[in-house]
């Protein structure tokens, strides 16, 4: 007895994922079947069976099933899947049931696979909404691939839309039914894919320091001294006065204690015997302020330091002697030259002040990149238009904050020209590539064949068909779908294969090293200088791109003085010289007073009238110095540009080479009827 081909159908549990001999059963009488597997979809199986008149989804009843076929020698498992649902024609004698080859662990498999696919440049998280990053479907946006589920093993994989991973099935003219061959132009190929992408972040650098070193000014210009910040002051818009230093290292605005002095002298007669008229006790208190009030807190730039002047004091005591009539007396002499010397010094040597300004840059920076990738495809229309023929696709994506994403630092001045930015560019190219490639399969060829030829078919394969009626006589393509059908009523069993054929030219990729812009190649390390005309191959080696040149815009970090300094002016025309003259005159007036030598008599409780007169004259003289300075002000004006609450935007046009697309069908080749 000859071996006959036999179909088996066995209900199974979901755990029976491995086909074995126990599944060689005929649990249902199958009148016809149709197994369909479309690219990116689950394989489905439609069966016409006798109505078992039992609940197909009744508890405890297996609703998974194996369909297998024996060619008489070997058993081929064809399908393992689950019942989709209760058939709609439930009351009929013959019902149609549909099963789908969706794995039990489909989600888990995809998640695991997707995790490994999230690699640059095919997946750039910054362009994917955070909520969708775990979505396995999103991960394929940068891949020219679709999900694939094996109809028997239920293994989840991806499959490229151009080059299958499981080899090429060759169909000769004898393998296909002559009337079952068809060719159609599915859709005009996508010729252009444009993507506008933007990234933004807040350029933030609070470490910037602008120094105005050795700013020379008249040390007696109290206006300058007055306006010098007393402490760290935030001026707003990112400008902070850190400190203003004088040459000696102290802050210019240090509120020095007023120079002055005091004398306390006390005498007690400690002799054992006393005569009438002896001085028993004497007390002298004297204090003075050499720097006029209001001046001492302002003129500190002049460094009216007590240590720089001289101060001397002398006193003489005379014990009283009743016998000789010598009265007790106390003489006190004070000579103060300190301030005069300091002022003299200040007049002679202008003070240099170091002003240190902290710059806290917070600049909203946006970079927009225009990526335009052309497909190197054969023409199918003589005058294709972008709008009418749907040959152009435009996408727009916005990245999340690149600093928050950790792909840039807040102090980075640019993004896209950086190494990480170029990976983003490559990602965008990959997205465009995926769109272009899947639409490059503009020709759809389908054919019918004998049943055994499709038993091992897969959407992870390529297939060729030889037919003289086809352009060039042979066409290669990616299997986009296939069918297996069988009917007991008419005894017809067959297969159908559909391929999508890419209509590229298959030209080689062109890359270019470019020419260095600054020094000869090799003189500096690679990456140190920009090259013009460079075309780097993308990771897929089917398109190239030019590195992006640095585009300066807005504030550049680290910040420099020239970026923010708007104006720097000394307003002291004539004032400085006038101040010198006036102050010199006033100082001279003080100096002319000379030292005061006073005599305190015993028992006097306060300064004498001439001492008071001297003190008044001295205060007026110093006030004259102060007034002289005030009457001749000079000041420094520094105007700085704001470094916060500002925005800058830069646009890049990415230069890319046309995408190389394989020639799987030569549309210009001849065919034979």
């Amino acid at each position, binding site marked *: 007895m000859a071996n006959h081909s036999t179909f088996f159908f066995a209900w199974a549990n979901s755990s029976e994922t491995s086909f074995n001999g126990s599944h060689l059963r005929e649990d249902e009488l199958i009148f016809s079947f149709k197994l369909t597997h479309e690219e990116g979809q689950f394989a489905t199986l439609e069966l016409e069976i006798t109505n078992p008149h039992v609940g197909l989804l009744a508890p405890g009843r297996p609703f998974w099933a194996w369909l297998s076929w024996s060619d008489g020698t070997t058993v081929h498992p064809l399908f393992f899947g689950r019942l989709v649902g209760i058939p709609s024609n439930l009351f009929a004698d013959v019902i149609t049931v549909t099963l789908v080859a969706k794995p039990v662990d489909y989600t888990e498999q995809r998640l695991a696979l997707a995790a490994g696919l999230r690699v640059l440049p095919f997946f750039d998280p910054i362009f994917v909404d955070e909520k969708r990053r775990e979505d396995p479907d999103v991960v394929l946006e940068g891949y020219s691939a679709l999900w694939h589920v094996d109809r028997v093993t239920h293994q989840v994989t991806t499959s490229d839309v151009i080059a299958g991973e499981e080899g090429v099935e060759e169909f000769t003219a004898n393998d296909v039914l002559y009337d079952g061959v068809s060719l159609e132009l599915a859709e005009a190929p996508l010729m252009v894919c444009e993507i506008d992408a933007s990234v933004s972040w807040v350029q933030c650098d609070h470490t910037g320091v602008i120094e105005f070193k050795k700013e020379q000014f008249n040390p007696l210009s109290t206006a300058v001294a007055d306006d010098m910040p007393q402490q760290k002051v935030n001026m707003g818009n990112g400008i902070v006065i850190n400190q203003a230093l004088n040459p000696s290292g102290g802050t210019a605005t240090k509120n020095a204690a007023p120079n002055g002095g005091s004398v306390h002298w006390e005498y007690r007669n400690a002799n054992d015997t006393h005569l009438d008229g002896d001085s028993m006790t004497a007390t002298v208190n004297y204090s003075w302020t050499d720097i006029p009030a209001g001046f001492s807190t302002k003129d500190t730039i002049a460094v009216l330091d007590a240590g720089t002047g001289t101060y001397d004091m002398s006193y003489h005591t005379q014990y009283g002697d009743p016998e000789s009539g010598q009265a007790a007396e106390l003489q006190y002499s004070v000579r103060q030259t300190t301030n005069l010397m300091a002022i003299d010094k200040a007049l002679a040597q202008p003070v240099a002040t170091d002003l240190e300004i902290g710059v806290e840059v917070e600049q909203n920076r946006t970079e927009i990149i225009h990526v335009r990738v052309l497909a190197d495809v054969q023409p199918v229309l003589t005058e294709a238009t972008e709008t009418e023929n749907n040959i152009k696709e435009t996408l727009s994506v916005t990245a999340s904050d690149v600093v928050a994403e950790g792909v840039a630092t807040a102090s980075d001045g640019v993004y896209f020209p950086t190494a990480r930015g170029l990976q983003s560019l490559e990602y965008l190219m990959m997205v465009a590539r995926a769109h272009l490639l899947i639409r490059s399969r503009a020709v759809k060829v389908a054919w019918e064949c004998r049943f055994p030829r499709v038993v091992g078919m897969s959407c992870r394969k390529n297939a060729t068909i030889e037919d003289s009626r086809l352009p060039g006589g042979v066409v290669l393509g990616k299997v986009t779908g296939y069918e297996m059908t069988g009917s007991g009523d008419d*005894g017809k069993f067959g297969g159908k294969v559909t391929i999508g054929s890419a209509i590229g030219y298959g030209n080689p990729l062109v890359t270019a090293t470019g020419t260095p812009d600054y020094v000869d190649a090799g003189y500096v390390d690679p990456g140190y200088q920009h090259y013009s005309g460079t075309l780097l191959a993308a990771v897929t080696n089917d398109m190239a791109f030019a590195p992006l040149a640095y585009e300066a815009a807005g504030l550049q970090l680290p910040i420099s003085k020239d970026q923010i300094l708007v104006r720097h002016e000394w307003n002291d025309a004539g004032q400085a010289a006038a101040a010198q003259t006036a102050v010199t005159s006033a100082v001279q007036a003080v100096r002319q007073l000379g030292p005061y030598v006073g005599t305190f008599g015993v028992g006097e409780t306060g300064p004498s009238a001439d001492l008071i007169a001297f003190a008044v004259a001295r205060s007026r003289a110093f006030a004259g110095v102060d007034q002289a300075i005030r009457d001749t002000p000079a000041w420094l004006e520094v105007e700085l540009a704001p470094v916060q609450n500002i925005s800058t935007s830069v646009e890049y046009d990415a230069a890319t080479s046309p995408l190389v697309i394989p020639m799987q069908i030569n549309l210009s080749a001849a065919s034979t009827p």
Partner: protein
Amino acid sequence: MTLIDIPGQTPSLPLGTWLVLSVGGVPLYSARNLDQTLQPIDAAHVTRRTVNGTLVDLSVDKFHKYQSKISCSDVEAPALDGVFPGMAVTVDCVAELVYKTAGGTPSRTVIAGSARTVGGFTIYRPRLDMMVVSFNQSISEYARTVQWELDLEEV
């Protein structure tokens, strides 16, 4: 008028035929030498062949019913005035059904006096409750012949 004698059956053909229709009737000289077919209705014939080549009967017992065509050429027309499709009619068939006498029983009502045995089989004419499906007749004037057909289906 020709009389036909069948052994074991009442040789009485007053109208020249054993056919009896409850509606209309069979006038004299209208149904002599008629032909009657008896076959299962279409719904009784439901078979499918599996992908493994096995023929499977998918019919249901309740559809195991007959359809019949009565055709005749005589000199008079049958009395079918007012008879239209869908009209119920009890037919005493001319066609016969046969079953094995031992252990067998007739599936239809046996017309009284129509049963006979031949060998181990019982032959009888059934009385069927039927419905008129279609009817047509024609006449040849000079030859004076009337051709008619009556299609019936068991209800």
